[in-house]
């Protein structure tokens, strides 16, 4: 496994963006936001065209051969990368936490997997811990936001308040707390489809908390949780909405330019 402390520094290196499959197909705007923020910070962004998915849907459902096939595609696509950044704690944790495990019996791919693991970062973690940037110089009209901490970012990546630091430094934005902010929204990949009653009941709790929260907007770092929660909010005709952190940051930069 990769030593969490002794990772190669991502400074002064071009970023290879792993946009993740869901952002690619459903939320490309979030990918654009990430590109805009990184370019604003004068970071060179690359996009390996051969990328697809990290393989997590198969891995978490137990189909590890299938996950390996897709992971190999990832490792091939990112073979020349120096730093890999993903706007998702969950997909980043798949590479960082599970790729080495997935290839533990295959010397060649294990090396490639640990190498990729050592240079993979979640987007806000990359900015705050990797580069030491907590203020990207963004500005917005006054608003209050609260965070839903996505589970894999929180518990597999050990993310704490990186995103919050970035958002607090947007001029005009105030951060408040969402009750049960560290409680799972019930997504869990195929769990949401195979045990929809349970996943739906977990989602209900999240929706109740969001309804009771006085924030104008809920932020999160994972598009899959966002899909679950927004899908539930829309089904229940709740006006509130969950937004990806990168989208708010990018909006703050644009607002600045005006």
């Amino acid at each position, binding site marked *: 496994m990769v030593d969490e402390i002794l990772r190669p520094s991502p400074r002064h290196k071009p970023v290879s963006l792993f946009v993740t499959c869901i952002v690619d197909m459903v939320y*490309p705007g979030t990918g654009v936001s990430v590109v805009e923020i990184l370019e604003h910070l004068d970071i060179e962004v690359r996009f390996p065209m051969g990328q697809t998915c990290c393989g997590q849907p198969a891995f978490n459902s137990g189909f590890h051969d*299938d996950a390996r*096939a897709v992971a190999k595609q990832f490792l091939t696509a990112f073979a020349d990368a120096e730093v890999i950044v993903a706007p998702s704690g969950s997909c980043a944790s798949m590479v960082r936490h599970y790729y080495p495990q997935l290839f533990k019996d295959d010397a060649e791919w294990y090396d490639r997997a640990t190498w990729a693991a050592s240079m993979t970062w979640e987007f806000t973690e990359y900015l705050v811990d990797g580069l030491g940037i907590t203020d990207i110089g963004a500005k917005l009209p006054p608003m209050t936001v609260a965070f839903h901490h996505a589970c*894999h970012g*929180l518990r597999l990546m050990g993310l704490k308040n990186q995103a919050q630091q970035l958002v607090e430094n947007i001029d005009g934005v105030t951060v408040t707390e969402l009750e049960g902010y560290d409680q799972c929204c019930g997504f869990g990949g195929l769990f*949401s489809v195979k045990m929809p009653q*349970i996943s739906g009941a977990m989602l209900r709790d999240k929706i109740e908390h969001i309804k009771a929260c006085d924030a104008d907007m809920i932020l999160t770092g994972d598009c899959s949780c966002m899909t*679950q929660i927004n899908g539930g909010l829309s*089904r229940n005709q709740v006006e509130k909405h969950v937004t990806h952190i990168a989208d708010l940051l990018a909006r703050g930069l644009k607002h600045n330019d005006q």
Partner: protein
Amino acid sequence: MAMNPKNFVQSATIAIEDITLQTALERGTSNADGRRRQVMAELDDPYALRMQGRHAKLRALHDLPDLLEQMERNVIANGGHVLWAADAAEARQHILNICRKHDLKRGVKSKSMVTEEIELLPALEAAGIRMVETDLGEYIVQLADDHPSHIVMPVMHRTKDEVRELFMEKIAMPYHEEASEMTAHARKTLREEFLNADFGMSGGNFMIAETGTVVIVTNEGNGRLSTGMPPVHIAVVGIEKIIPTWEDFATLIQLLPRSATGQRLTVYVNMFNGPARIDEPDGPQEFYLVLVDNGRSDVYASEYVEALACIRCGACLNACPVYQTVGGHSYGSVYSGPIGAIVTPAMWGKERASPLPFASSLCGACKEACPVEINIPDMLIALRRDLAKTQGPVWELGMKAWRFGNAHPLLFEMGGKFASKVTHAYMQSTGADKLDTLPPPLNGWTEHRDFPPFAEQSFHDWWRQNREDK
């Protein structure tokens, strides 16, 4: 519904709709979890203590066979007897033999999950031996002819009103408003049982190999009465409860009550070194230790060995959003919640408990709560791997197709374009801006939530247009 892990989804669906149960669960889990978080946070370095606890248990597992033999030698040296049980049937037989040998007819028992696991009570009953549970929670379970739904709080699934009704019906309690009055009534009834019992039974939270001591940790004092008053004491303990030294006990006893009930200290810690010595006025004349394997050796020899480090504190149950939603009975096993989803299939066969490892969003709250940081999520994933084929051909073939698409970037992009076309065409036909029905096997999604349309332009295409061509 019969206790069977195979019925997980059906039982859970019923549980979700049961408003009384939901009230009880919500209160029980959030109280326990909240208190745990609070008292753990008070420690100078909670993580360091958890790591110390974890490694105490892992070291013990490393030396398990030797420690068990050391335990046996010391118990015998202290004047007790040790009986080894490979499985539940052998454990029951040992206990029946002891009862026959000493002509035991009335027992009192303090809380023990292992005796539930080996289904001891029905066997005793069949042999004409009366056994009364003396832990309040277990007593309620017994009176109601129910099963425990939580490894620490067996009646987490019942409300105070239900218990009141039960006591009024079964043990002639007049109406009492307060829980304390209800408890007092139960206590009085139980007192008689202690006085008349000819044997006492307990489990064991820890076995300390270096001195041959069985330790039980309780809050009610019933443990002391049921083991100290009757002339015979039988302790039934799973072999994974062994730790080498008192030093390790000193670590773990800081973690157990904090994690289990959010208490800094537990009320009673009872330690048994065997039968009463000549100069001791109290205590049993005979002491038996029944060491139960019942599948643990198999777990020991497997990649799930870490599950044996569990100190049965129940913190992972309280922290688990699935347990909070479905309650303990849905799991159809003595051991419910996240750790139950590992232990049940690992000990009694994966196929027999196949839905349990899938009953998780893999959020990791269990591992975060666990005082010995057992990596439950990763073990659930490993069990899913072992059970991959049981998910049915739709998922198996679906996954193959998914793999093919994602291993070939061109197909991946074509798939995205296709999904975009289809979703937009569908939305045009319904006039909505979202999808409220998905085709099988994905229809579970739209039972509870909408799905956004696939984007008209993928990020790949955006990049081509805005970066590559520039």
